[in-house]
């Protein structure tokens, strides 16, 4: 156990126990202008869960429409707007900020043993920029939402009448929120580690956040310039991306995917970071291959910049470019594989307790393995030509983004819920919700692999009759999935009121956050934490 350097007076600790970051200051203003990374994390958590509900609603509408060919509940134009909003809200408003900005903001400084992030004011600014960006996206929803898909491909996006400018402006602003979070975390990890915490003693969550922040800082500006060029293309008709005016639509795709593929690693790396925290604690065993997992996070971050062309194998790209991108895509698959092997190896000869966070971690391993392996189909040139832009791709990225990041996010939420709120949630309800989510997810998306292989194209409002049974099956799955999340919302909110008090260390973890009261005091620790050993060293 990490020795407390300054033996704080026990009386102080007990009084401090009741005084924590939530009740340290009262009143709405104390939340609105807070500089405390924990409060900003909680505010982010509330906002992204709201965005998740909104995006999830859109998803249920899409699936409901597709239960039968032809018109079910909405016309083609509305359907296109709903699936565009589903994509844009889920990507820009939920999944990119979810783990880094919500859980990361709360946990990173504590895991490092720091009092706060490096630039607290920048952290608050990042949240308010997120809110402004969200307002622009929701405003676009009200003024005839964009119907271009979350990729805004030109020349369709520059010629459609819907409010593409408002949505792209929203995404442009959200980009800055993401940059500031990344910038903040890199400075924090470099400069604010506790005394004695070398890079080798840092918890793997911080390694994951570090790799994610590197991508956020380097890739997001290119999204900014891409959306700026798109807005100028639409407003001034500059003609860079519109073939009729002499531009090149494939150039837009290069610009867009140069950001968007690293963006999918911004999504998955934090998920992996959480899994690297959960599995050792619930197997009561030190992580297997710490160095391999840490370095593969950074490797994924770097190689992630080389592979964007695999989104464009059939876009009229030259065969040479296709070959290069296909080869590099396979290289980036290796670090992900190494991580999965290391997690499974960690469980070998451990003492595994199946609490809810561990259940989510196991679900992550199951779903992410399928997601990763189906990526091999899409990385292979000849098979991708058949599968590109079909439901196979939809299933693949849902398995990796939802089965991976969202499941890991909820695993992390359950893992740190006692620390964030000081309350325990009902374990039995949580297990049911996890089972529902797992079953609903597989029913919804396993069928879509088959749909895609049989040639069902993506973003189709109406489809030929032979696909109807699979679509209906997938829609039923989405209801089960929706039910699972509803149940989770219920018992988590209920736990705020009726949950029993959480102890400092409910799961027996050895990283810093379990040695401070839950919820933690305003300056995270009542003593100066010193890292004397690795993050997962258990006394066997």
């Amino acid at each position, binding site marked *: 156990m990490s020795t407390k350097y300054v033996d704080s007076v026990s009386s102080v600790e007990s009084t401090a126990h009741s005084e924590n970051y939530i009740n340290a200051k009262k009143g709405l203003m104390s939340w609105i202008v807070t500089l405390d990374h924990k409060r900003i994390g909680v505010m982010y958590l509330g906002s992204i869960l709201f965005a998740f509900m909104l995006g999830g609603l859109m998803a249920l509408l899409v699936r409901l429409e597709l239960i039968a060919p032809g018109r079910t509940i909405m016309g083609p134009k509305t359907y*296109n707007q709903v699936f565009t909003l589903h994509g844009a809200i889920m990507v820009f408003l939920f999944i990119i900020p979810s783990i880094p900005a919500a859980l990361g903001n709360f946990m990173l400084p504590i895991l490092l043993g720091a009092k706060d992030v490096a630039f607290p004011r920048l952290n608050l600014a990042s949240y308010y920029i997120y809110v402004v960006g969200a307002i622009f996206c929701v405003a676009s929803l009200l003024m005839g939402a964009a119907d271009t898909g979350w990729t805004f491909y030109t020349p369709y996006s520059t010629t459609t009448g819907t409010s593409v400018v408002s949505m792209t402006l929203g995404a442009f602003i959200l980009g800055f929120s993401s940059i500031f979070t990344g910038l903040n975390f890199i400075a924090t990890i470099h400069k604010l580690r506790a005394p004695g915490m070398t890079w080798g003693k840092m918890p793997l969550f911080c390694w994951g956040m570090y790799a994610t922040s590197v991508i956020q800082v380097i890739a997001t500006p290119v999204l900014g310039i891409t959306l700026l060029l798109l807005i100028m293309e639409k407003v001034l008709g500059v003609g860079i991306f519109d073939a009729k005016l002499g531009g090149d639509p494939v150039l837009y795709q290069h610009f867009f995917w140069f950001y968007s593929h690293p963006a999918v690693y911004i999504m998955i790396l934090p998920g992996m970071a959480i899994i690297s925290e959960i599995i050792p604690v619930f197997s009561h*065993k030190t992580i297997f291959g710490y160095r391999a997992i840490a370095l593969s996070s950074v490797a994924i971050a770097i190689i992630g910049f080389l592979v964007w062309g695999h989104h464009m194998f059939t876009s009229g790209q030259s065969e040479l470019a296709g070959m290069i991108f296909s*080869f590099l895509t396979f290289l980036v698959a290796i670090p992900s594989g190494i991580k999965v092997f290391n997690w499974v190896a960690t*469980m070998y000869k451990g003492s595994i307790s199946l609490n809810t966070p561990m259940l989510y971690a196991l679900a992550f391993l199951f779903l992410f393995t399928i997601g990763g392996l189906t990526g091999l189909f899409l990385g292979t040139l000849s098979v991708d030509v058949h599968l590109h832009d079909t439901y196979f791709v939809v299933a693949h990225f849902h398995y990796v983004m939802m089965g991976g990041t969202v499941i890991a996010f909820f695993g992390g939420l359950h893992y740190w819920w006692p620390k964030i709120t000081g309350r325990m949630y009902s374990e039995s309800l949580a297990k049911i919700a996890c089972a529902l989510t797992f079953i609903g997810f597989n029913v919804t998306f396993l069928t879509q692999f088959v749909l895609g*292989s049989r040639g069902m194209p993506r973003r189709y*409002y109406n489809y030929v009759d032979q696909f109807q049974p699979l679509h209906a099956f997938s829609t039923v799955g989405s209801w089960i999935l929706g039910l699972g999340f509803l149940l989770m919302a219920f018992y988590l909110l209920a736990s705020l009121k009726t949950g029993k008090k959480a102890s400092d260390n409910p799961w027996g973890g050895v990283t810093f956050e379990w040695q401070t009261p839950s919820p933690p005091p305003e300056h995270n620790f009542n003593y100066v934490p010193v890292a004397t050993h690795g993050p997962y060293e258990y006394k*066997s």
Partner: protein
Amino acid sequence: MNMFLLAPFMPLQGSEYAKSVDLLYEFIFWLGVVFFIGIVGSMAYFVFKYKRVGEPRNIPQFSHNFALEVTWSVIPLIIVIVIFFWGFDSYMSNRIAPNDSLEIKVYAKKWQWEFEYPDGTRTLGEFHVPKDKPVKLIMSSDDVIHSFFLPTMRQKMDVLPGRYTTLWFQPTVEGKHQVFCTEYCGDGHSEMMAELTVDSQDKYKEWIENGGLDKDTPLDQLGARLYKSRNCNTCHSIDGTRIQGPTFKGIWGRTERITGGTTVVVDENYVRESVMDPNAKVVEGYERGVMPTYKGLLKDREVNAIIEYMKTLK
């Protein structure tokens, strides 16, 4: 040997190339199953075997094993490189069309495909090709990016405005094959389908001789088929609801007010004129310049067929 276990997963194998793609698809699939069982199986086994009972005591705390980690890095690396080369090889073999292939020009425009044969025959929404002969499609778009997808031939290529992209296949199975548009292109994206019919050599010759017409089908049935295949249904409904153009239901013989005050009776001449020159007499309340001209796209017999079909729509 091609016992293709995953047949229900994939559409009909319409060409030899389709078979080679399916072989690679199957290889990756079974490889995935092996890895999946390995990972999830051992995970499940560990959860079952090392279930925590009471307080965890004397748990071995080994943290890495260099040899194991190297093996499970190198082996997947070799496997993925093999998959890469196999995929790249079959991709390249299918990118360069043989010289003697039948070149068909394909024009994509918002929500319909138009085909133009070397001898000038033009069809809309359907095209015929001879069996066992390479066919090369030279495609370009008139407005936004579309994508020509032939599932049964495992072929897909985006269709870009302002330049040509090509795609070729050699069909071996006769019959009708579905064509989809797979690059999102607006409201009618899911309607933008076409139909490839693979005929035997002589049947194709006969089809191409009389400019892609069906001799025997009665006019109103042909009209009904053309109503769908020529995409009239995208703008003109037959159940009375208004889309972008007036509905065909009960239109025959009705007098319509034309923008500019004059009126006209919907008869053969008006329909023929509106098909060939849509902006001549536009019914009041409808926009000009929306309906594309069908001049050169519909043979006289086909226009008569549509007229007969409209007569049946009471």
